């Protein structure tokens, strides 16, 4: 392939598809390279799609995108071994079109998204792994692929190659990823008849629920669990920081099995057929883990740039938004006849800083460190909460005043006044 492109986009996930689509719509000559057999075949997500991000790129996406259920209810479970203390929010407002968020199956969704990319005029080649960036000094001038005569040239390369960000680390653009900055998540998809799902979760047709879980299911590690309803399946999984996984002896699949056998979860997936098991790393380092995302002839978008809001479980919307902003930067420069060098590509960083992406990540910049250093939020408190709830709910002839005193004592015994106040302050600092 001797022809030269305006832009090469590496990867066909949320960031890559958003970027390639916007570039092609903007009239640039785009090549998108994907290592999977088809777009989506290497991609893993929970998965919740936030309508807002895709709507800004493809306003009428609802017409033909493969969407599972729109979410009308969000549950939060703080769990110990036998129980959970929960909160939920369910509103008929979420049942009004246009819907705000949906469950999706990434393999199906990404194929649809990539079809849009091709229709917009980008050239897409699959089953091709980009092995290295081609450099002229510090400037990226193209990519090397594992195809015959695999050198392909472009004025800019946008790296949407996912959390492992191999191309940028190989090129020395940023250091290796640290275990403290990524979570390892494993999940399964369980099939059940549509009516069974709707009955078990109190849902009408096309309505969905998301359950986010914290506490004992992560075996003392910093992490969370989740369960999402799809049309005819349930996706459930658990993820913990890799730095925590590294220090203990429970395997990820043992953790998942334990979660599936929790007395509150087991009945929800009873008699289902498991059809796929997947694992994925999630960038959780936040603001401080974001590398340099542009340079001479290159930009980084999506998970490769560590753009994930861990607390709010947002990632795909940040991926799409960063991919879109990278594309818009290139389109504007091309129109102005300016070269894609670091000076001009810095406009991408300005766009990021002015968007919700960096504003949100900056707001929660202290969170990863605070939670890393204070595991009691994942161990002690879920236990205390559960015991307190049980004490107040169980009717056993003990007066409520004595029960309250007992609960107070249990909190003080575990954390002390100083500890409790300190934890309250830390929690506030993490999310302020």
């Amino acid at each position, binding site marked *: 392939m001797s022809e030269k492109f305006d832009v090469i986009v590496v990867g066909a996930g949320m960031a890559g598809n958003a970027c390639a689509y916007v570039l092609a719509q903007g009239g640039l000559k785009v090549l998108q390279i994907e*290592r*999977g*057999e088809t777009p*989506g*075949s*290497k*991609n*893993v*997500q929970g*998965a919740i799609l936030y309508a807002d991000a895709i709507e800004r790129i493809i306003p009428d996406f609802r017409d033909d995108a493969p969407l599972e259920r729109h979410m009308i209810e969000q549950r939060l479970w703080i769990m110990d071994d036998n129980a959970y203390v929960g909160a939920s929010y369910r509103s008929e407002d979420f049942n009004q079109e246009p819907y705000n968020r949906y469950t999706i*199956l*990434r*393999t*199906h969704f*990404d194929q649809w998204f990539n079809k849009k990319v091709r229709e917009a005029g980008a050239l897409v080649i*699959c*089953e*091709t*792994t980009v*092995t290295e960036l081609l450099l002229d000094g510090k400037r990226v001038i193209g990519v090397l*692929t*594992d*195809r015959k005569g695999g050198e392909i040239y472009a004025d800019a390369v946008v790296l949407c190659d996912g*959390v*492992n960000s*191999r191309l940028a680390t190989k090129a020395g653009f940023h250091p*290796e*990823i*640290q*275990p403290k900055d*990524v979570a*390892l998540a*494993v999940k*399964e*998809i369980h099939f059940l008849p549509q009516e069974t799902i709707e009955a078990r979760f109190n849902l009408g047709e096309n309505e969905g629920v998301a359950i986010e879980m914290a506490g004992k299911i992560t075996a003392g590690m910093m992490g969370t669990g989740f369960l999402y309803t799809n049309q005819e*399946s349930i996706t459930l999984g658990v993820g913990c920081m*890799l730095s925590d*996984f*590294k220090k*203990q*002896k*429970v*395997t*990820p*699949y*043992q953790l998942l*099995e334990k979660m599936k056998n929790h007395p509150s979860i087991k009945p929800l997936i009873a008699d289902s057929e*498991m*059809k*796929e*098991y*997947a*694992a*994925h*790393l999630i960038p959780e380092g936040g603001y401080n883990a974001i590398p340099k995302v542009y340079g001479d002839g290159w930009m980084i978008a999506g998970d490769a740039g560590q753009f994930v809001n861990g607390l709010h479980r947002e990632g795909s919307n940040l991926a799409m938004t960063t991919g879109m902003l990278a594309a818009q930067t290139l389109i504007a420069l091309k129109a102005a006849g300016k070269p894609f060098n670091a000076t001009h590509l810095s406009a991408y960083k300005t766009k990021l800083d002015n968007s919700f992406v960096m504003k949100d990540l900056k707001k929660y910049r202290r969170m990863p460190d605070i939670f890393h250093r204070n595991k009691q939020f994942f161990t002690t408190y879920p236990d205390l909460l559960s015991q307190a709830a049980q004490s107040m709910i169980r009717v056993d002839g003990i007066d409520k005043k004595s029960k309250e005193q007992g609960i107070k004592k249990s909190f003080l015994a575990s954390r002390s006044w100083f500890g409790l106040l300190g934890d309250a302050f830390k929690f506030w600092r993490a999310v302020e």
Partner: protein
Amino acid sequence: MSKIEEKLFQDRYQVDTAGAHIAIKDAELCLHCEQQQCAVCCPAGCYTQEGNGRLVLITDGCLECGTCRIVCDQRNLDWEWPRGGFGILFKFG
């Protein structure tokens, strides 16, 4: 469904018979690694502890998450993506 093999049995792969995409650089280095956390952390159970301190890596069930590369303090892995079209092929993702 508690064994990893039973989970991986549900997954679709195009195994590259031309060679593995991950290789242990120096097996001796693993002998001196006390934790061998790759064997604990790999979500596909690709790393097996032999009992004599040796580690065996079989990449056929690899889910391509990248965990082993990041947890290896010794940086003792040659870790590349599989050739285009090979490896795990998610049906649902």
